[in-house]
């Protein structure tokens, strides 16, 4: 089933066009990986999906992005509600300078998801458990989140993202700042999360894309060159550019 469908998406930074006519459908409860050399626009595309590009003044998005039969680039679209449905994890772990508990409870509390302290405790616990962090931090929930290791911080950010039960989770190179062990943990986690969430992950590492994703899109110079099942893209791509990139001839 198609969860997100992007139609004719163009993105401009001031006068410079960053994305050209992107058409891409994203399947529900699958992991879709976006790969490509740096500066190819894959992160820009990811940020279109929860309208994080609004934060950048000079950025303009054109075209349709339909989620649940609703075009999020419509004027009537409420970004607050949109972002509640579509969570995001960033390249560098960015826990708030608050306690672990407050980091997780932040989303539920602003969206009014818990009526009592007890419910909130529950949400925090479930989120941390889903992010496979609970065992490591359950005794120090009221210590600052910035005191964790890099991998733990990133899992904390994932826990924060899933605390509001989003339908989609966007991950912008979530492992690029982490060591291999932490990366492995996150990848395992992604595999687990796809049961309940649709996941779109931007990654630099083709190996990672191959490991975690079911579908893959290849971006080059602001264009979506090719997309499809990961197996096919990696083993038998249609486009020679994809072939060259996969085999490491450029990028």
């Amino acid at each position, binding site marked *: 089933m198609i969860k997100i469908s992007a139609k004719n998406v163009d993105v401009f930074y001031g006068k410079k066009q960053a994305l050209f006519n992107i058409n891409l459908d994203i399947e529900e409860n699958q992991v879709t990986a976006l790969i490509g050399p740096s500066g190819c626009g894959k992160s820009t595309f990811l940020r279109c999906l*929860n309208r*994080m590009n609004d*934060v950048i*003044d000079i950025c303009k998005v054109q075209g349709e992005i339909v989620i649940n039969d609703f075009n999020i680039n419509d004027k009537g679209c409420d*970004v*607050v*509600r*949109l*972002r*509640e449905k579509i*969570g*995001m994890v*960033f390249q*560098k772990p*960015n*826990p*708030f*300078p*608050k306690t672990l508990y407050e980091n997780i409870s*932040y*989303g539920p509390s*602003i*969206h009014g998801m818990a009526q009592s302290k007890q419910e909130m405790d529950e949400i925090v616990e479930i989120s941390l458990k889903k992010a496979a962090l609970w065992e490591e931090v359950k005794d120090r929930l009221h210590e600052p989140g910035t005191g964790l290791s890099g991998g733990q911080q990133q899992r904390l*950010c994932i826990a*924060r*993202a899933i605390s*509001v039960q989003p339908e989609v989770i*966007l991950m912008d190179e979530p492992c690029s700042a982490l060591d291999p062990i932490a990366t492995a943990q996150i990848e395992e986690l992604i595999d687990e999360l796809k049961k309940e969430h649709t996941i779109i992950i931007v990654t630099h590492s083709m190996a990672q894309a191959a490991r975690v994703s079911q579908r893959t899109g290849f971006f080059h110079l602001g264009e979506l060159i090719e997309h499809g099942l990961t197996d096919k893209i990696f083993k038998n791509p249609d486009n020679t550019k994809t072939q060259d990139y996969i085999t490491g001839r450029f990028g």
Partner: protein
Amino acid sequence: MNLVLFIFIVLLGFTSYYFGRKKAYTIQSTNKRLTALPQFYGYYLAIWCAIPAFIIYSLWAIFEPTIVKLLILSDYANQGYLDDELNLIYEKTKALSRGQFTGEVTSFIQTSSEKYLNLRSIAQSSKVVIVLCIIIASVAYAYKRISSNNRTREPVEKFFNAVLFTASLAAILTTVGIVFSLIFQTIDFFKVIPLFDFVFGTHWYPAKAFVRDSSEALDPTMYSDTFGAVPIFAGTFFIAFIAMCVAIPIGLMSGIYLAEYASYKVRQYAKPLIEILAGIPTVVYGFFAALTVGPFLKDIGTAMGLEVSAESALAAGGVMGIMIIPFISSLSDDVITSVPQSLRDGSYAMGATKSETIKKVIFPAALPGIVGSILLGVSRAIGETMIVVMASGLAANLTLNPLESTSTITAQIVVILIGDQAFGDPKTQAAFALGMSLFIVTLCLNIVALRVVKKYREKYE
């Protein structure tokens, strides 16, 4: 005479620069390799010419009067004069030799005065001779060294380095100067007024001390209940509090708006406009408070049936608050802008609105920096003088009613020290004691604030 000598030394310095450089060219013309650029030979010679001469010259200027005085007064030694009387004799002698003495001229003073003139002329001529000798000797030495093509760049650069270092000591010297100027008077003050009475006394009435004769000045009982600084300290903090009540909400909200909401264009115009408020001299604020705000508050108060003094703490504090707005807004703007964008992204991605992001993520993250800027604002409010002097009255009432007049540390210092002061008077010393307390309080605030801000900066760099 002194000026002529001074100019002469300077001219000699320039000449020796020229000769040094010329010497370098002659060395060069004999096909020897120079050890430095020709100018350095010039600098080298000029430094050797002028600096020793200046040192001798200034030492002479410092010690000559003392030595002359000693020599003059040695005639009066062992005659049972008191120190004060000796000083008087010396002053008379000097006045007579300048022809400005109006009074009975005794033969003693007449001879002293002749001796004084004599000594001075000897001193003058020997100074010129010695300075010239020094110049000749040091130039000769330096010239010999450069003739043998010795190194000149290193010593010259070392000299300049020393000059730079000395300049950087100016900041320390100023601090030392502040402490010294305050501490002696303060100690003298506490010899007369017990520290306890000053810190815990509730009556401040320095005018009472003024009427007394100076011969009574050292009788401590006369000053009981005169120099109790509690009303002054209370007034200072009270007015600063009122000022911060105005400055913090407006300053902070403008800072937040400028940093987070304002478009580039609004920011470009609003920020400098608000900062104009910080550039307006405080005396202008004082006039504004006294002429407009004070009477305005009084009118409103009277209309509401309240007793409002035309010189109220509210008027002074309110206007002071306006003055402090830009400090708080600029500093908190800087602090908020330096919160990393990733935290904002994190919060927006959770579906938070802008104000939620600001209130729950950015503000807590920026809090140390904001607290630092507020502390700096408080320090400024406490040290502000002219607004209080002009708008808040000078009577030290111990009150928490913002509609009454109160006084502050700074205002009292001005009240006491405006006009002529006698340095031995406890009243004058009280002003220095107040200055000392002001210095200590603001110093502590500044150190804490600067440290907090610095720590904060380092965290996000």
